[in-house]
């Protein structure tokens, strides 16, 4: 294709010569108008906020009288430091309830702090603790079987629900039941890092967050999909934006290796691998270019990958069992490359797939996935 012609055509586009000056002027005018408006509306806004606070107090008092308090929940879980923190002025009492399906779910409140509990091993890291209560509207107790159907997870606006959630934030949940009410204490990696964004606590019927359950709008706001029929609630956490650390938050999200930018129209078909009749070469369609490993280049790749995985084990993000299995798989591929029974390729910049020639009577597909290429042999 004639890319020089393309570049020349783009260069000839007749954008307004005064675009920059006009835009700068428009932005400055906008700022000035906003400053004037803010001064006029300040007093009115203060009055409205006071009225709203009175209304909120009326509603929360009803929930507070019926449920255990946050510190009582922590006490029953034998966490005295956390119980004290839940009674401190740093704690945020919410008692926001949503009735959904046959259930009422209440976000009781939350607190963030360092070394507040003995439930996790990261005592040198700040964690956020939130208490939720779940009860049946009809009043009967919840069975263990019912409880396993529900998920309670933090989510953060601007990041896909499948990248930032209970699992990727290295969180834990602890439960007790009292008087027919199920209480869940979520112990989450410090959510205040994300406090410059909208931070949610989602309750819903189902497993880990997925595209079928959640969607996002252009501003990064998260919502339940319209056709998601199960019980659900989405609370917003009132975190202090001054405690946000956007750089640390972004680094944390990127370290997960998960796709954190929402793609409203994801790839609908995977890359397809077409094999030659003798099973000795593959062509990745449509247009991916695999770089084939030799035994030597794969050994170098394996050494690097093993080091990366070992670091994950040390960081506590990978189990020893998964590490051992990954290393064993790589050793098998390396052995196959050496004796000519296997082939392995790198696709794109971070995807590696391998197959054994005995398997090439089957259809093979490769799909870009977390940390590599998902290779399916059918």
């Amino acid at each position: 294709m004639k890319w020089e012609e393309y570049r020349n055509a783009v260069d000839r586009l007749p954008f307004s010569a005064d675009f920059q000056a006009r835009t700068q002027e428009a932005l400055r005018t906008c700022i000035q108008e906003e400053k004037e408006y803010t001064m006029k509306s300040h007093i009115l806004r203060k009055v409205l906020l006071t009225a709203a606070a009175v209304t909120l107090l009326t509603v929360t008092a009803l929930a507070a009288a019926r449920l255990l308090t946050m510190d009582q929940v922590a006490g029953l879980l034998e966490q005295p430091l956390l119980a004290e923190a839940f009674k401190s002025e740093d704690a945020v009492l919410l008692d926001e309830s949503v009735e959904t399906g046959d259930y009422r779910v209440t976000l009781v409140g939350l607190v963030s702090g360092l070394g507040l509990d003995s439930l996790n091993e990261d005592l040198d890291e700040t964690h956020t603790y939130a208490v939720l209560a779940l009860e049946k509207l009809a009043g009967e107790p919840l069975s263990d079987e019912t409880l396993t159907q529900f998920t309670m997870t933090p989510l953060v606006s601007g990041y896909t629900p499948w990248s930032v959630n209970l699992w990727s934030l290295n969180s834990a949940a602890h439960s007790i039941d009292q008087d027919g009410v199920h209480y869940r204490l979520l112990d989450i990696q410090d959510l205040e890092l994300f406090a410059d964004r909208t931070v949610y606590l989602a309750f819903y019927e189902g497993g880990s967050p997925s595209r079928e359950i959640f969607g996002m709008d252009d501003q990064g706001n998260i919502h339940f999909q319209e056709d998601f029929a199960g019980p659900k609630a989405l609370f917003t956490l009132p975190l202090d934006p001054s405690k946000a650390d956007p750089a640390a938050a972004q680094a944390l999200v990127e370290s997960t290796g998960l796709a954190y930018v929402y793609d409203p129209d994801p790839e609908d078909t995977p890359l397809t691998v077409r094999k030659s009749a003798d099973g000795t070469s593959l062509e990745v369609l449509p247009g991916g270019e695999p770089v084939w490993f030799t035994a030597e280049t794969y050994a170098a790749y394996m050494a690097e990958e093993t080091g990366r995985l070992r670091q994950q084990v040390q960081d506590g993000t990978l189990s020893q069992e998964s590490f051992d299995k990954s290393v064993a798989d790589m050793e098998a591929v390396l052995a196959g490359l050496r004796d000519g029974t296997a082939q392995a390729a790198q696709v794109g910049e971070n995807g590696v797939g391998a197959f054994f020639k005995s398997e090439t009577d089957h259809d093979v597909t490769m799909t870009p996935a977390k940390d590599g290429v998902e290779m399916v042999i059918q």
Partner: protein
Amino acid sequence: MDLGPFTSDETISRIVGEYSDMLLRLAYTRLSSVSDAEDAVQEAFLQLLTSRVSFRDAGHEKAWLIRTTLHRASDIRRRAEGRNVSLEEAALAAAPETGSELLQAVQALPEKYSAVIHLHYYEGYSIKEMGKLLGLPAATVGTRLARGRERLRQILKEE
């Protein structure tokens, strides 16, 4: 409307001066006129003004503006389509501003392909760099680049 941290005269001058040309070209790949592209970029700058975002470095700032411009261009495109105007057809049939079949064909691509095609072949970004700018895995960007090229071949063959 609340204002974010990007409101000083110096910041506005720097950001508009530094990014306008690149964002206008990118927006144009999604739209059928330079005036629509100018609207999309102005809306993106306005959104920056009112967003409480902070950037860890220049690359993050550029990536945010690129993604926001693409979103605003898509909004304008959808609004136009709501008026029963097919922009793909308009881009192919009219496009008096381009005079280039290849540019018109890029405009007719779905956004996920046109953005990577333009960023790669005009702005010169590598697959890895585009992955960071668009917040996508490099493998996905590579796939989109390959599929975008294939779609372009089909469009140009049909013409």
